[in-house]
């Protein structure tokens, strides 16, 4: 290809120095000389068939290389976003959800242990300590992984700052309680207020920031590679036009080079369409049945935790904390969390409640089973809560207490049942997510490199094909 161009080039360098000697006043004539040379070149390129073929060949080759480059670039971009979903943003949002859940669990467990007083079991104490340890460890990890976002760093700083204050208050509550001082209950309620007013909102904001990032990564990975598709179609059209032109001029039906280029372009386009389409479908699936149900079930678990925490605190406060209209503040809190979780007191969760959404998002019998189990658990829980509450309102605290913190047939046992089922559902959804997201990532494997190689081959085929035509003019 460079050879024909060289034959047209020589006059240029020959004239150049001469024009340069003319100095400043000669600038106009130099420009005229360049213009003349360009005109000659244009004449050579457009007026003669070999010239035209050379230009067409060069343009086609460039278009194919561009197609390959744009495809490789856009596919790499999407693959990187898909990797980010699986390797960075989903684990980070899961970690943030774990921080949130550990804190809520710690608060609920602290209240349960407090109610048991001196009879607090080792298991309850260990669960509280594990929750705090998990939250601290995840916070350290989150601080290391969060990168730039100042909003996330601020939440992590708040959590790091307030968590020791919270644990200090809980220990004070335990110490006072063990000495038989009702002040312990006041400390526990204060600790719980700090948890619900400072720590949990910060954990929630951190989780929401991570979730937004996850959704942004999903959107990046799923965005159609429009530029690559457009350049590909343009290349295909151009190849068709050139071949039609050759057919009309020379009656030659096939040019093997151009045909090969067309084939390779088609392969890249189809590969791109199918590959990205598949990746997109798998990623969407991983979002709907993985990430989204992880979110919904995670929220359901936190609502369950807070509902149980509230019913325990209502026994700690013993009617000492009332709302403006004279109702037990913690019982109201329980009602709110239960409404989020289940809706009403019917047999099935109300439409739009977290468990209802979790159920409709759950995939297959394996996915639905734990959610159904949680729903059954909540039904038991509500029944037991009503009985315990009735006993407490009637002034029979001694009968109400074991109905909440007892090991069997208590609301606490129901809560544990629900919590275990929801954790099982979370594990199942995590697997679902991972599988679908990995499939999605897999669909893009080799596409960028393949597109590059095929585009270069296509360009080479174009040059060979056009070169063969050119050789016929010699």
């Amino acid at each position, binding site marked *: 290809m460079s050879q024909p161009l060289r034959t047209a080039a020589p006059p240029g360098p020959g004239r150049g120095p001469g024009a340069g000697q003319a100095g400043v006043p000669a600038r106009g004539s130099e420009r005229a000389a360049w213009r003349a040379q360009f005109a000659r070149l244009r004449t050579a390129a457009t007026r003669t068939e070999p010239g035209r073929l050379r230009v067409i060949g060069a343009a086609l080759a460039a278009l194919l290389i561009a197609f390959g480059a744009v495809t490789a670039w856009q596919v790499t971009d999407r693959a990187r976003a898909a990797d980010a979903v699986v390797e960075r943003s989903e684990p980070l949002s899961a970690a943030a959800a774990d921080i949130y859940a550990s804190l809520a669990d710690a608060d609920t467990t602290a209240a349960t242990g407090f109610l048991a007083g001196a009879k607090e079991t080792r298991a309850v104490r260990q669960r509280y300590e594990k929750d705090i340890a998990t939250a601290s460890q995840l916070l350290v990890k989150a601080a290391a992984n969060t990168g730039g976002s100042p909003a996330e760093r601020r939440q992590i700083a708040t959590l790091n700052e307030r968590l020791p204050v919270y644990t200090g208050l809980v220990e004070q509550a335990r110490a006072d309680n063990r000495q038989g001082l009702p002040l312990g209950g006041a400390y526990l309620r204060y600790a719980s207020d700090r948890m619900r007013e400072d720590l949990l909102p910060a954990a929630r904001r951190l989780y929401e920031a991570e979730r937004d990032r996850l959704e942004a990564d999903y959107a990046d990975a799923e965005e159609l590679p429009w530029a690559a598709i457009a350049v590909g179609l343009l290349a295909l059209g151009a190849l068709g036009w050139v071949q039609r032109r050759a057919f009309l001029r020379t009656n030659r039906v096939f040019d093997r080079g151009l045909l090969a280029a067309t084939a390779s372009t088609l392969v890249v386009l189809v590969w791109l369409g199918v590959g990205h389409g598949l990746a997109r479908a798998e990623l969407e699936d991983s979002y709907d049945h993985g990430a989204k149900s992880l979110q919904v079930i995670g929220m359901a678990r936190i609502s369950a935790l807070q509902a149980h925490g509230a019913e325990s605190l209502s026994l700690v406060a013993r009617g*000492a904390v009332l709302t403006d209209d004279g109702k037990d503040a913690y019982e109201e809190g329980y009602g709110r969390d239960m409404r989020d979780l289940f809706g009403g007191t019917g047999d099935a969760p109300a439409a739009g409640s977290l468990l209802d959404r979790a159920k409709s998002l759950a995939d297959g019998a394996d996915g639905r089973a734990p959610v159904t189990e949680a729903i059954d658990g909540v039904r038991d829980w509500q029944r037991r809560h009503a009985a315990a509450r009735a006993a407490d309102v009637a*002034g*029979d605290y001694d009968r109400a207490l074991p109905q909440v913190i007892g090991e069997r047939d208590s609301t606490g046992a129901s809560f544990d049942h629900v919590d275990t089922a929801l954790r099982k559902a979370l594990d199942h959804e995590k697997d679902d997510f991972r599988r679908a997201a990995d499939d999605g990532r897999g669909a893009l494997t080799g596409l960028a490199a393949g597109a590059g190689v095929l585009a270069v081959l296509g360009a080479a085929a174009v040059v060979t094909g056009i070169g063969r035509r050119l050789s016929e003019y010699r």
Partner: protein
Amino acid sequence: MHARTTETAHTAHTTQTARSARTARTARTVFGATVAMVVTCALAAVAALLLPGGGPPGRTDGRPATAAARPAAAAAPAERAADCTDPEASLRPSTADGPAVRRIKERGRLIAGVDQNSYRWGYRDPATGKLDGFDIALVRAVAKAILGDPDKVTFLAIPTNQRIPALKSGKVDIVARTMSISCDRIKEVAFSTAYFQAGQQLLVPKGSTITGIDDDSLTGRKVCAAAGSTAEAELAKRASAKVTTVPNQLDCLVRLQLGQVDAILTDNALGAGQAAQDPSVVLVGKPFTTEYYGVAVNRGSEDLVRRVNAVLDDYRAGGTSSPWMQAYRQWLARADLGITAPPEPKYRD
């Protein structure tokens, strides 16, 4: 979460009491002025009952303010409804069985509505899970008198806002739950004679420079009070301090221990419970309001009111070794309330 304290706002009675307490302070130097006010009172019968009663024995020792405040509390009749001049005046004691007492005897158990959050009054000992305190001891005395056994009691832990509904519905026979007698409440339930006299007082860390509510020592300092309580209303009248409100009076002690406030304003009976939980805090200044606690009974159960009053008569009798003084020493003496005797009973019939 806005919420109220165990001792919710004492409504009209509170302000009346406070107002009369101030009246008392101005009249303090001339005790006769109080007498004069009583004379001008519309109901001469009440005055007649009041004056012979005079100050209780032992009241003369260094507590003139409270002693003066007491008659004054009954001496603001012009501002009060004609039928409520002296809410703490109850029915004469009697041990005759009426329908209410017979019902308890037939049941074999006394059902009492009590608190389980007020340390030293009615609280649940976390070690044993059992209820104990000054109010609980009083309920046991009532059970012993009626049923012959102090343990034949079913304690129902009722929240503040359930005290009156529980009595009206008959769920409980009596309520002994740091419940102050007020003109509003006597329209709803009947009260025994007063079994305790309380007042608003400041609670501060030992060594604090705060010395009282009405000197300048409180200026610019942070004071904690339960939301909706008498203390909050009293603090609102005095703009000098910065007020922090919390759901429950005990929450104030948490804030004080955490250094978020400099003082607590609360009913000194409850303050005594706080001081008992933290030996490093003390009550300072003088109580500047007067409230009487009574055992509440359904309005229809006159026989039970008289019966409880008879129990209270016995409970108070015996000077320094009376059951009342024993219970006081056991549960409340540590707080140094300066009380040396139970309040004198008043009757309206």
